[in-house]
Protein backbone atom coordinates (compact mmCIF):
# COMPACT_ATOMS: atom_id res chain seq x y z
CA UNK A 1 0.00 0.00 0.00
CA UNK A 2 2.82 2.31 0.94
CA UNK A 3 4.58 1.52 -2.33
CA UNK A 4 1.47 2.47 -4.24
CA UNK A 5 1.29 5.74 -2.33
CA UNK A 6 4.88 6.56 -3.13
CA UNK A 7 4.37 5.76 -6.77
CA UNK A 8 1.30 7.93 -6.82
CA UNK A 9 3.21 10.73 -5.15
CA UNK A 10 5.99 10.44 -7.68
CA UNK A 11 3.44 10.64 -10.45
CA UNK A 12 1.88 13.73 -8.93
CA UNK A 13 5.27 15.28 -8.45
CA UNK A 14 6.21 14.56 -12.03
CA UNK A 15 2.97 16.00 -13.25
CA UNK A 16 3.38 19.09 -11.11
CA UNK A 17 6.88 19.67 -12.37
CA UNK A 18 5.85 19.25 -15.97
CA UNK A 19 2.90 21.58 -15.60
CA UNK A 20 5.14 24.05 -13.82
CA UNK A 21 7.55 24.02 -16.70
CA UNK A 22 4.82 24.43 -19.25
CA UNK A 23 3.47 27.40 -17.35
CA UNK A 24 6.92 28.85 -17.04
CA UNK A 25 7.55 28.52 -20.75
CA UNK A 26 4.14 29.80 -21.66
CA UNK A 27 4.66 32.90 -19.57
CA UNK A 28 7.59 33.89 -21.73
CA UNK A 29 6.52 32.85 -25.21
CA UNK A 30 4.12 34.85 -27.32
CA UNK A 31 1.54 33.09 -29.42
CA UNK A 32 1.15 33.84 -33.11
CA UNK A 33 -1.40 36.47 -32.29
CA UNK A 34 1.18 38.30 -30.17
CA UNK A 35 -0.49 37.49 -26.89
CA UNK A 36 1.69 35.82 -24.26
CA UNK A 37 1.11 32.10 -24.49
CA UNK A 38 0.42 31.76 -20.78
CA UNK A 39 -2.21 34.42 -21.09
CA UNK A 40 -3.58 32.84 -24.24
CA UNK A 41 -3.65 29.35 -22.73
CA UNK A 42 -4.96 30.55 -19.39
CA UNK A 43 -7.59 32.64 -21.08
CA UNK A 44 -8.43 29.80 -23.46
CA UNK A 45 -8.81 27.32 -20.64
CA UNK A 46 -10.63 29.74 -18.39
CA UNK A 47 -12.91 30.83 -21.19
CA UNK A 48 -13.89 27.20 -21.63
CA UNK A 49 -14.53 27.01 -17.90
CA UNK A 50 -16.58 30.17 -18.19
CA UNK A 51 -18.41 28.76 -21.18
CA UNK A 52 -19.15 25.58 -19.28
CA UNK A 53 -20.22 27.51 -16.21
CA UNK A 54 -22.36 29.79 -18.32
CA UNK A 55 -23.94 26.83 -20.07
CA UNK A 56 -24.58 25.17 -16.74
CA UNK A 57 -26.11 28.32 -15.33
CA UNK A 58 -28.19 28.76 -18.48
CA UNK A 59 -29.46 25.21 -18.28
CA UNK A 60 -30.23 25.68 -14.61
CA UNK A 61 -31.99 28.96 -15.27
CA UNK A 62 -33.92 27.44 -18.16
CA UNK A 63 -34.99 24.50 -16.05
CA UNK A 64 -35.82 26.80 -13.19
CA UNK A 65 -37.73 29.28 -15.30
CA UNK A 66 -39.57 26.68 -17.34
CA UNK A 67 -40.43 24.25 -14.61
CA UNK A 68 -39.65 25.31 -11.08
CA UNK A 69 -40.41 28.98 -11.45
CA UNK A 70 -43.77 28.48 -13.15
CA UNK A 71 -45.57 29.70 -10.08
CA UNK A 72 -44.02 33.10 -10.50
CA UNK A 73 -44.79 32.97 -14.20
CA UNK A 74 -48.40 32.17 -13.49
CA UNK A 75 -48.65 35.09 -11.09
CA UNK A 76 -46.94 37.35 -13.58
CA UNK A 77 -49.16 36.06 -16.34
CA UNK A 78 -52.27 36.82 -14.35
CA UNK A 79 -50.97 40.25 -13.50
CA UNK A 80 -50.13 40.96 -17.13
CA UNK A 81 -53.53 39.73 -18.26
CA UNK A 82 -55.17 42.07 -15.77
CA UNK A 83 -53.00 44.93 -16.95
CA UNK A 84 -53.78 44.11 -20.56
CA UNK A 85 -57.51 44.05 -19.88
CA UNK A 86 -57.27 47.32 -18.04
CA UNK A 87 -55.25 48.85 -20.86
CA UNK A 88 -57.71 47.59 -23.44
CA UNK A 89 -60.58 49.14 -21.53
CA UNK A 90 -58.67 52.40 -21.24
CA UNK A 91 -57.86 52.25 -24.94
CA UNK A 92 -61.48 51.71 -25.80
CA UNK A 93 -62.46 54.60 -23.56
CA UNK A 94 -59.88 56.85 -25.18
CA UNK A 95 -60.97 55.78 -28.62
CA UNK A 96 -64.59 56.36 -27.75
CA UNK A 97 -63.74 59.79 -26.44
CA UNK A 98 -61.79 60.59 -29.58
CA UNK A 99 -64.62 59.38 -31.78
CA UNK A 100 -67.09 61.38 -29.79
CA UNK A 101 -64.93 64.48 -30.00
CA UNK A 102 -64.62 63.97 -33.72
CA UNK A 103 -68.36 63.54 -34.08
CA UNK A 104 -69.04 66.65 -32.04
CA UNK A 105 -66.53 68.57 -34.10
CA UNK A 106 -68.30 67.54 -37.30
CA UNK A 107 -71.62 68.39 -35.79
CA UNK A 108 -70.36 71.82 -34.82
CA UNK A 109 -69.11 72.31 -38.34
CA UNK A 110 -72.49 71.36 -39.75
CA UNK A 111 -74.20 73.77 -37.41
CA UNK A 112 -72.01 76.62 -38.52
CA UNK A 113 -72.39 75.76 -42.19
CA UNK A 114 -76.13 75.34 -42.19
CA UNK A 115 -76.88 78.67 -40.61
CA UNK A 116 -79.86 77.06 -38.94
CA UNK A 117 -80.82 77.24 -35.32
CA UNK A 118 -80.06 73.79 -34.07
CA UNK A 119 -79.44 71.94 -30.88
CA UNK A 120 -77.08 69.11 -30.46
CA UNK A 121 -78.49 65.98 -29.02
CA UNK A 122 -77.15 62.64 -27.98
CA UNK A 123 -78.79 59.41 -28.96
CA UNK A 124 -79.71 57.56 -25.82
CA UNK A 125 -81.70 54.63 -27.20
CA UNK A 126 -82.52 52.73 -30.35
CA UNK A 127 -85.70 51.35 -31.75
CA UNK A 128 -87.91 49.33 -29.45
CA UNK A 129 -89.28 47.27 -32.32
CA UNK A 130 -87.47 45.94 -35.32
CA UNK A 131 -90.45 46.86 -37.51
CA UNK A 132 -89.99 50.55 -36.85
CA UNK A 133 -86.79 52.45 -37.42
CA UNK A 134 -86.65 54.97 -34.64
CA UNK A 135 -84.27 56.21 -32.02
CA UNK A 136 -84.44 58.27 -28.87
CA UNK A 137 -82.51 61.48 -28.23
CA UNK A 138 -81.82 63.22 -24.96
CA UNK A 139 -83.49 66.51 -25.76
CA UNK A 140 -87.20 67.18 -25.39
CA UNK A 141 -89.81 69.89 -25.40
CA UNK A 142 -88.04 71.70 -22.61
CA UNK A 143 -85.20 72.21 -25.05
CA UNK A 144 -87.53 73.56 -27.70
CA UNK A 145 -88.17 70.38 -29.62
CA UNK A 146 -91.39 69.96 -31.41
CA UNK A 147 -92.99 67.39 -33.67
CA UNK A 148 -91.74 67.24 -37.24
CA UNK A 149 -88.49 68.99 -36.51
CA UNK A 150 -85.77 67.72 -38.77
CA UNK A 151 -82.91 65.75 -37.33
CA UNK A 152 -79.65 65.84 -39.24
CA UNK A 153 -76.13 64.56 -38.92
CA UNK A 154 -72.87 65.69 -40.54
CA UNK A 155 -73.21 63.08 -43.24
CA UNK A 156 -76.86 63.74 -44.05
CA UNK A 157 -80.48 63.66 -43.05
CA UNK A 158 -81.40 61.37 -40.16
CA UNK A 159 -85.14 61.77 -39.78
CA UNK A 160 -87.68 63.82 -37.91
CA UNK A 161 -88.96 64.22 -34.40
CA UNK A 162 -92.19 62.28 -33.99
CA UNK A 163 -92.76 62.13 -30.25
CA UNK A 164 -91.23 64.87 -28.15
CA UNK A 165 -91.44 64.48 -24.38
CA UNK A 166 -90.18 66.88 -21.77
CA UNK A 167 -86.59 65.65 -21.69
CA UNK A 168 -86.42 63.24 -24.59
CA UNK A 169 -87.76 62.74 -28.05
CA UNK A 170 -88.43 59.90 -30.43
CA UNK A 171 -86.99 60.33 -33.90
CA UNK A 172 -88.35 58.54 -36.92
CA UNK A 173 -85.49 57.61 -39.21
CA UNK A 174 -85.71 58.38 -42.88
CA UNK A 175 -85.35 54.67 -43.64
CA UNK A 176 -88.45 53.77 -41.67
CA UNK A 177 -91.15 52.49 -43.98
CA UNK A 178 -93.50 55.22 -42.82
CA UNK A 179 -91.03 58.01 -43.49
CA UNK A 180 -90.74 60.13 -46.60
CA UNK A 181 -89.07 63.33 -47.68
CA UNK A 182 -89.13 65.62 -50.66
CA UNK A 183 -85.94 65.10 -52.68
CA UNK A 184 -84.14 66.19 -55.77
CA UNK A 185 -81.26 64.89 -57.74
CA UNK A 186 -78.52 67.42 -57.33
CA UNK A 187 -77.00 66.95 -60.79
CA UNK A 188 -80.21 67.29 -62.83
CA UNK A 189 -82.43 69.00 -60.26
CA UNK A 190 -85.06 66.34 -61.00
CA UNK A 191 -87.52 66.10 -58.15
CA UNK A 192 -89.13 63.17 -56.43
CA UNK A 193 -89.97 61.71 -53.07
CA UNK A 194 -87.75 59.41 -51.03
CA UNK A 195 -89.59 56.80 -49.06
CA UNK A 196 -88.19 54.55 -46.41
CA UNK A 197 -88.15 50.86 -47.03
CA UNK A 198 -87.78 49.68 -43.50
CA UNK A 199 -84.25 48.50 -44.26
CA UNK A 200 -81.12 50.45 -44.99
CA UNK A 201 -82.38 51.60 -48.37
CA UNK A 202 -84.60 54.38 -49.65
CA UNK A 203 -86.82 54.40 -52.65
CA UNK A 204 -87.02 57.43 -54.91
CA UNK A 205 -90.49 57.73 -56.41
CA UNK A 206 -92.39 60.17 -58.53
CA UNK A 207 -89.47 61.02 -60.71
CA UNK A 208 -90.40 62.42 -64.11
CA UNK A 209 -89.91 60.21 -67.16
CA UNK A 210 -87.93 62.92 -68.84
CA UNK A 211 -85.51 63.24 -65.98
CA UNK A 212 -81.97 62.10 -66.31
CA UNK A 213 -81.17 59.70 -63.49
CA UNK A 214 -77.96 57.79 -63.17
CA UNK A 215 -76.33 55.57 -60.65
CA UNK A 216 -74.15 57.56 -58.27
CA UNK A 217 -76.20 60.71 -58.43
CA UNK A 218 -76.45 62.63 -55.20
CA UNK A 219 -79.95 63.01 -53.78
CA UNK A 220 -80.64 65.93 -51.47
CA UNK A 221 -83.67 67.30 -49.69
CA UNK A 222 -85.87 69.57 -51.77
CA UNK A 223 -87.57 71.28 -48.83
CA UNK A 224 -91.05 70.98 -50.31
CA UNK A 225 -92.20 68.69 -47.52
CA UNK A 226 -91.98 71.53 -45.03
CA UNK A 227 -89.99 69.42 -42.63
CA UNK A 228 -86.46 69.07 -43.93
CA UNK A 229 -84.48 72.12 -44.89
CA UNK A 230 -83.50 72.25 -48.52
CA UNK A 231 -80.15 70.97 -49.74
CA UNK A 232 -79.25 68.41 -47.12
CA UNK A 233 -77.77 65.14 -48.28
CA UNK A 234 -80.05 62.13 -48.32
CA UNK A 235 -77.96 59.61 -50.19
CA UNK A 236 -76.68 58.29 -53.51
CA UNK A 237 -78.57 56.48 -56.22
CA UNK A 238 -77.29 52.92 -56.53
CA UNK A 239 -79.96 51.21 -58.63
CA UNK A 240 -81.98 52.55 -61.56
CA UNK A 241 -84.55 50.35 -63.31
CA UNK A 242 -86.73 51.55 -66.16
CA UNK A 243 -89.94 50.16 -67.60
CA UNK A 244 -90.20 51.63 -71.04
CA UNK A 245 -89.75 55.32 -70.62
CA UNK A 246 -90.96 55.36 -67.02
CA UNK A 247 -88.75 54.75 -64.06
CA UNK A 248 -89.73 51.48 -62.50
CA UNK A 249 -87.43 51.55 -59.51
CA UNK A 250 -84.80 53.94 -58.21
CA UNK A 251 -82.96 52.88 -55.08
CA UNK A 252 -81.04 55.33 -52.89
CA UNK A 253 -78.30 54.36 -50.48
CA UNK A 254 -78.53 56.65 -47.42
CA UNK A 255 -75.54 58.81 -46.74
CA UNK A 256 -75.98 58.33 -43.02
CA UNK A 257 -74.87 55.16 -41.38
CA UNK A 258 -77.71 54.85 -38.91
CA UNK A 259 -76.03 52.11 -36.97
CA UNK A 260 -73.14 54.38 -36.04
CA UNK A 261 -75.01 57.49 -35.05
CA UNK A 262 -74.14 58.93 -31.67
CA UNK A 263 -74.88 62.63 -31.86
CA UNK A 264 -77.31 64.53 -34.02
CA UNK A 265 -78.54 68.04 -34.56
CA UNK A 266 -82.19 68.93 -34.23
CA UNK A 267 -83.16 71.83 -36.45
CA UNK A 268 -85.01 74.31 -34.29
CA UNK A 269 -85.58 76.82 -37.05
CA UNK A 270 -89.28 76.78 -37.77
CA UNK A 271 -90.08 75.11 -41.04
CA UNK A 272 -93.08 76.19 -43.14
CA UNK A 273 -95.00 73.13 -41.96
CA UNK A 274 -94.20 73.92 -38.38
CA UNK A 275 -95.16 77.51 -38.80
CA UNK A 276 -98.41 76.49 -40.48
CA UNK A 277 -99.18 74.09 -37.68
CA UNK A 278 -98.47 76.73 -35.07
CA UNK A 279 -100.56 79.22 -36.99
CA UNK A 280 -103.44 76.75 -37.17
CA UNK A 281 -103.23 76.20 -33.45
Amino acid at each position, binding site marked *: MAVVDIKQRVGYLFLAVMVGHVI*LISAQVNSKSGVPMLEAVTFGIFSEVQRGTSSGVSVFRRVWNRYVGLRAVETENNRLKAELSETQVQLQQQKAMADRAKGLEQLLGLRDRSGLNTTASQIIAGSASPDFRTLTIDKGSVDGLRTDMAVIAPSGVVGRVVVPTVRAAKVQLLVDHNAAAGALIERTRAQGVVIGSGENRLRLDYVSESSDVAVGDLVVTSGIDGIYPKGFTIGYIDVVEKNGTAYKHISVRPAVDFSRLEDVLVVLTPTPLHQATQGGE
Partner: protein
Amino acid sequence: MKAAGVIVALALALTIQTTLAKFVRGPVSVDLVLVAVVYVALTSGPVTGLLSGTLAGVIQDSLAAQVIGIGGLAKSLVGFVTGIIGTQFIVSQPLPRFVVFFVASVAHQAIIIGLGVLLDLRTWGRPYAPALVQAAVNALVGVLTLQLVELLPGAVERRKMAKTRLRR
Protein backbone atom coordinates in the same frame (compact mmCIF):
# COMPACT_ATOMS: atom_id res chain seq x y z
CA MET B 1 22.88 10.63 -2.78
CA LYS B 2 22.19 13.37 -0.35
CA ALA B 3 20.67 16.65 -1.42
CA ALA B 4 23.86 18.52 -0.67
CA GLY B 5 25.82 16.12 -2.87
CA VAL B 6 23.35 16.61 -5.70
CA ILE B 7 23.58 20.38 -5.42
CA VAL B 8 27.35 20.22 -5.34
CA ALA B 9 27.44 17.94 -8.38
CA LEU B 10 25.13 20.22 -10.32
CA ALA B 11 27.02 23.35 -9.28
CA LEU B 12 30.26 21.75 -10.30
CA ALA B 13 28.86 20.70 -13.65
CA LEU B 14 27.52 24.18 -14.28
CA THR B 15 30.79 25.77 -13.29
CA ILE B 16 32.84 23.52 -15.52
CA GLN B 17 30.34 23.87 -18.35
CA THR B 18 30.44 27.65 -18.24
CA THR B 19 34.18 27.66 -17.88
CA LEU B 20 34.69 25.26 -20.75
CA ALA B 21 32.26 27.15 -22.94
CA LYS B 22 34.72 30.01 -23.09
CA PHE B 23 37.39 27.82 -24.57
CA VAL B 24 35.66 25.06 -26.45
CA ARG B 25 34.31 26.30 -29.76
CA GLY B 26 33.43 24.12 -32.69
CA PRO B 27 31.12 21.39 -33.77
CA VAL B 28 31.88 19.16 -30.81
CA SER B 29 30.13 20.23 -27.64
CA VAL B 30 29.23 18.62 -24.38
CA ASP B 31 26.40 19.23 -21.92
CA LEU B 32 27.94 18.56 -18.57
CA VAL B 33 24.82 19.62 -16.72
CA LEU B 34 22.85 16.95 -18.52
CA VAL B 35 25.54 14.45 -17.69
CA ALA B 36 25.25 15.43 -14.05
CA VAL B 37 21.48 15.11 -14.09
CA VAL B 38 21.61 11.64 -15.68
CA TYR B 39 24.26 10.64 -13.23
CA VAL B 40 22.18 11.80 -10.26
CA ALA B 41 19.08 10.10 -11.70
CA LEU B 42 20.90 6.80 -12.19
CA THR B 43 22.32 6.83 -8.69
CA SER B 44 19.39 8.33 -6.78
CA GLY B 45 16.17 7.46 -8.57
CA PRO B 46 13.41 9.22 -10.51
CA VAL B 47 12.35 11.79 -7.92
CA THR B 48 15.85 13.06 -7.37
CA GLY B 49 16.42 12.91 -11.12
CA LEU B 50 13.28 14.91 -11.70
CA LEU B 51 14.09 17.59 -9.15
CA SER B 52 17.72 17.85 -10.09
CA GLY B 53 16.73 18.09 -13.74
CA THR B 54 14.33 20.88 -12.91
CA LEU B 55 16.83 22.80 -10.82
CA ALA B 56 19.74 22.39 -13.19
CA GLY B 57 17.66 23.02 -16.29
CA VAL B 58 16.09 26.19 -14.99
CA ILE B 59 19.44 27.56 -13.83
CA GLN B 60 21.02 26.62 -17.14
CA ASP B 61 18.17 28.25 -19.05
CA SER B 62 18.46 31.42 -17.05
CA LEU B 63 22.18 31.54 -17.63
CA ALA B 64 21.80 30.75 -21.33
CA ALA B 65 19.41 33.66 -21.93
CA GLN B 66 16.77 31.56 -23.59
CA VAL B 67 13.20 30.79 -22.70
CA ILE B 68 13.41 29.61 -19.11
CA GLY B 69 11.81 26.22 -18.72
CA ILE B 70 12.60 24.55 -22.00
CA GLY B 71 15.85 23.08 -20.77
CA GLY B 72 14.24 22.53 -17.39
CA LEU B 73 11.40 20.59 -18.94
CA ALA B 74 13.75 18.51 -21.04
CA LYS B 75 16.11 17.76 -18.18
CA SER B 76 13.28 17.03 -15.76
CA LEU B 77 11.79 14.54 -18.18
CA VAL B 78 15.09 12.95 -18.93
CA GLY B 79 16.04 12.82 -15.25
CA PHE B 80 12.77 11.25 -14.30
CA VAL B 81 12.82 8.58 -17.02
CA THR B 82 16.49 7.85 -16.44
CA GLY B 83 15.79 7.48 -12.75
CA ILE B 84 13.10 4.93 -13.51
CA ILE B 85 15.46 3.06 -15.83
CA GLY B 86 18.12 3.12 -13.14
CA THR B 87 15.78 1.56 -10.63
CA GLN B 88 14.27 -0.98 -13.00
CA PHE B 89 17.42 -2.19 -14.79
CA ILE B 90 20.97 -3.02 -13.79
CA VAL B 91 23.04 -0.22 -15.23
CA SER B 92 26.42 -0.87 -13.68
CA GLN B 93 28.48 -1.77 -16.71
CA PRO B 94 30.05 0.83 -18.98
CA LEU B 95 28.14 -0.17 -22.12
CA PRO B 96 24.63 0.01 -20.64
CA ARG B 97 25.62 3.26 -19.01
CA PHE B 98 26.85 4.58 -22.35
CA VAL B 99 23.57 3.61 -23.97
CA VAL B 100 21.56 5.31 -21.22
CA PHE B 101 23.61 8.49 -21.43
CA PHE B 102 23.43 8.44 -25.21
CA VAL B 103 19.69 7.89 -25.37
CA ALA B 104 19.10 10.45 -22.62
CA SER B 105 21.13 13.01 -24.55
CA VAL B 106 19.28 12.31 -27.79
CA ALA B 107 15.96 12.53 -25.99
CA HIS B 108 17.04 15.76 -24.36
CA GLN B 109 17.96 17.25 -27.70
CA ALA B 110 14.77 16.00 -29.29
CA ILE B 111 12.66 17.61 -26.60
CA ILE B 112 14.47 20.93 -26.89
CA ILE B 113 14.26 20.94 -30.67
CA GLY B 114 10.65 19.81 -30.58
CA LEU B 115 9.67 22.56 -28.18
CA GLY B 116 11.60 25.07 -30.24
CA VAL B 117 9.73 24.07 -33.37
CA LEU B 118 6.43 23.91 -31.55
CA LEU B 119 6.83 27.37 -30.12
CA ASP B 120 8.37 28.73 -33.29
CA LEU B 121 11.38 29.99 -31.38
CA ARG B 122 14.08 29.37 -33.97
CA THR B 123 14.71 27.45 -37.15
CA TRP B 124 16.51 24.19 -37.04
CA GLY B 125 18.46 23.10 -40.10
CA ARG B 126 19.63 19.50 -39.88
CA PRO B 127 20.35 19.00 -36.20
CA TYR B 128 20.72 15.21 -36.39
CA ALA B 129 24.50 14.94 -36.76
CA PRO B 130 25.44 17.56 -34.14
CA ALA B 131 22.85 16.06 -31.81
CA LEU B 132 24.23 12.57 -32.24
CA VAL B 133 27.81 13.77 -31.82
CA GLN B 134 26.91 15.66 -28.68
CA ALA B 135 25.04 12.62 -27.40
CA ALA B 136 28.06 10.45 -27.98
CA VAL B 137 30.35 12.90 -26.24
CA ASN B 138 27.92 13.27 -23.35
CA ALA B 139 27.73 9.50 -23.06
CA LEU B 140 31.47 9.15 -23.10
CA VAL B 141 31.96 11.85 -20.48
CA GLY B 142 29.17 10.39 -18.38
CA VAL B 143 30.54 6.87 -18.42
CA LEU B 144 34.02 8.12 -17.58
CA THR B 145 32.69 10.29 -14.80
CA LEU B 146 30.74 7.41 -13.29
CA GLN B 147 33.73 5.12 -13.52
CA LEU B 148 35.96 7.73 -11.95
CA VAL B 149 33.56 8.48 -9.13
CA GLU B 150 33.13 4.80 -8.42
CA LEU B 151 36.85 4.22 -8.50
CA LEU B 152 37.66 7.26 -6.40
CA PRO B 153 36.62 5.95 -2.93
CA GLY B 154 38.54 2.67 -3.51
CA ALA B 155 41.61 4.54 -4.69
CA VAL B 156 41.56 6.77 -1.64
CA GLU B 157 41.25 3.74 0.62
CA ARG B 158 44.11 1.95 -1.12
CA ARG B 159 46.31 5.03 -0.85
CA LYS B 160 45.54 5.36 2.86
CA MET B 161 46.34 1.70 3.41
CA ALA B 162 49.59 2.02 1.45
CA LYS B 163 50.67 5.01 3.54
CA THR B 164 49.91 3.11 6.73
CA ARG B 165 52.04 0.17 5.58
CA LEU B 166 54.99 2.41 4.75
CA ARG B 167 54.90 4.04 8.23
CA ARG B 168 55.08 0.63 9.84
